[in-house]
């Protein structure tokens, strides 16, 4: 009885591990297939533009408003800490570096995963549940080329642009609170920011981070949609998994990328 309990438990654990590894391998092959069949996404760029509208443009409001508020909070908190050391003029540097290096790419990616990633998964999942993907296959049109690839590339293209806009609005929010509301010197705010933010080290690295996050979110979103159980419960579970897995993957990837990019900087 005791042996059964342990061997049954071990078997269950082993099965779960092999299932996860198998699924990861399938997801990797799916990503390769998506890239291989991307000629339609670029050859008929109108399809990708349409998806950029749905994933990128329709995410603008949440990204811009969140960026503004995050920047305003940074302005308040940053001023509160810096003025204790008599360096409140460095507020511009603090706001800009925090946003461009970290908060812009990461928070924009988390918002993008919730707003657009979940929508992509739900749409592809519902297309599968209502046999639209099967119908496409039977009409000799590959759903990976026609449905998956344009959505994947739309996410990859939109993410860095949204992160840049998030950072820009955040800096503006920090300026509104720091300079206009609290009264930090405007010249110091902008000039110190200009002197300290490095294009290669800070801005390009931030863009690289957001592009990597774009690939991660889009990959997870299209895969979860394509692989989901074709039922209402299956689509709902896949949508939840997209948000949870993307968020964790973004935070883990952010740590790895930060460790690689800013060593000794």
């Amino acid at each position, binding site marked *: 009885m005791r042996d059964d309990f342990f061997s049954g438990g071990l078997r269950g654990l082993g099965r779960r591990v092999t299932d996860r590894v198998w699924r990861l391998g399938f997801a990797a092959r799916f990503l390769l297939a998506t890239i291989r069949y991307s000629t339609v996404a670029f050859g008929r760029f109108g399809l990708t533009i349409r998806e950029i509208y749905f994933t990128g443009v329709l995410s603008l409001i949440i990204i811009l408003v969140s960026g503004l508020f995050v920047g305003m909070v940074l302005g308040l908190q940053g001023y509160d800490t810096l003025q204790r050391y008599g360096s409140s003029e460095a507020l511009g540097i603090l706001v800009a570096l925090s946003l461009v290096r970290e908060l812009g790419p990461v928070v924009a990616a988390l918002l993008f995963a919730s707003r657009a990633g979940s929508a992509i998964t739900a749409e592809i999942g519902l*297309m599968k549940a*209502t*046999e*639209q993907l*099967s*119908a*496409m*296959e*039977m*009409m*000799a*049109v*590959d759903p990976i080329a*026609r449905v998956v690839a344009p959505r994947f590339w739309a996410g990859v293209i939109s993410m860095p642009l949204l992160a840049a806009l998030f950072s820009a609005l955040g800096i503006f929010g920090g300026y509104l609170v720091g300079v206009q509301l609290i009264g930090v010197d405007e010249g110091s705010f902008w000039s110190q920011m200009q002197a300290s933010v490095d294009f290669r080290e800070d801005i390009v690295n931030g863009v690289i981070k957001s592009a990597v996050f774009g690939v991660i979110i889009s990959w997870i979103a299209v895969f979860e949609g394509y692989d989901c159980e074709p039922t209402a419960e299956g689509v709902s579970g896949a949508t939840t998994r997209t948000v949870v897995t993307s968020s964790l993957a973004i935070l883990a990837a952010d740590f790895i990328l930060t460790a690689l990019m800013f060593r000794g900087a």
Partner: protein
Amino acid sequence: MSSELLVKLTDVNFTYDRRPVLKGINMQIPRGKVVAIMGLSGCGKTTTLRLIGGQLRATAGEVLVAGKNVGELDSDELYALRRRMGMLFQFGALFTDMSVYDNVAFQLHEHTDLPEELVRDMVMMKLHAVGLRGAHDLMPSELSGGMARRVALARAIALDPLLIMYDEPFAGLDPISLSIVGELIRTLNNALGISSIVVTHDIQESLKIVDYVYFVSEGRIVAEGTPADIRKSDQPYVHQFIWGEADGPVSYHYPARPFGEQIYREAPRAR
């Protein structure tokens, strides 16, 4: 069943997840005929369609369509063959983000470089054939179940296929829509000179329009013949199916252990 064959299944077996779904199916679909595959839900009818369309591959046996062995085609050859097939899915499977017009024009846009005026003329002809030319700018969410099925039919015939496969075309339709769809299947088959395979469990409607019937039960063909043969059949399975009887070779109850034993065993838990 003597005319030239378009589809031929020989000793086809299909196993899914170690569970045998089809066991030694032999079937022939001649050109220009409407053939029905009937049976209860889950008996392997839709699997048969998916094997013919190449969405699944037979575990054993041969599926020939227009002289080609579907199981041996690579993806390019399979896609080339599918351009000559149309399929109507159970609930239409219309693309919900496209209008009726764009749904019907989908294959023309994907597979041809025809000028848009010509595509428009062709789409309107197909929609006219199913009586929905006036609905070309509606979205799928604005259509009734019967209309959606007819739009899907217009989409299935957009490239003038050799073969149309219908997966439960009558499911969930009101009597008028049901009769219209049934009539359309027969009329289009005759007018376009194509072959049709109708997977259904609606026996009364399908016997009016088909030329030949295969009965499938638990993955095997248990009866076949013309509608007249089927009506006259005294085989218990066919009789039970036609008259919708609860008693017969097909059990109403899902397999379970004896009632008394179940009550006795579960009684202590109920307390």
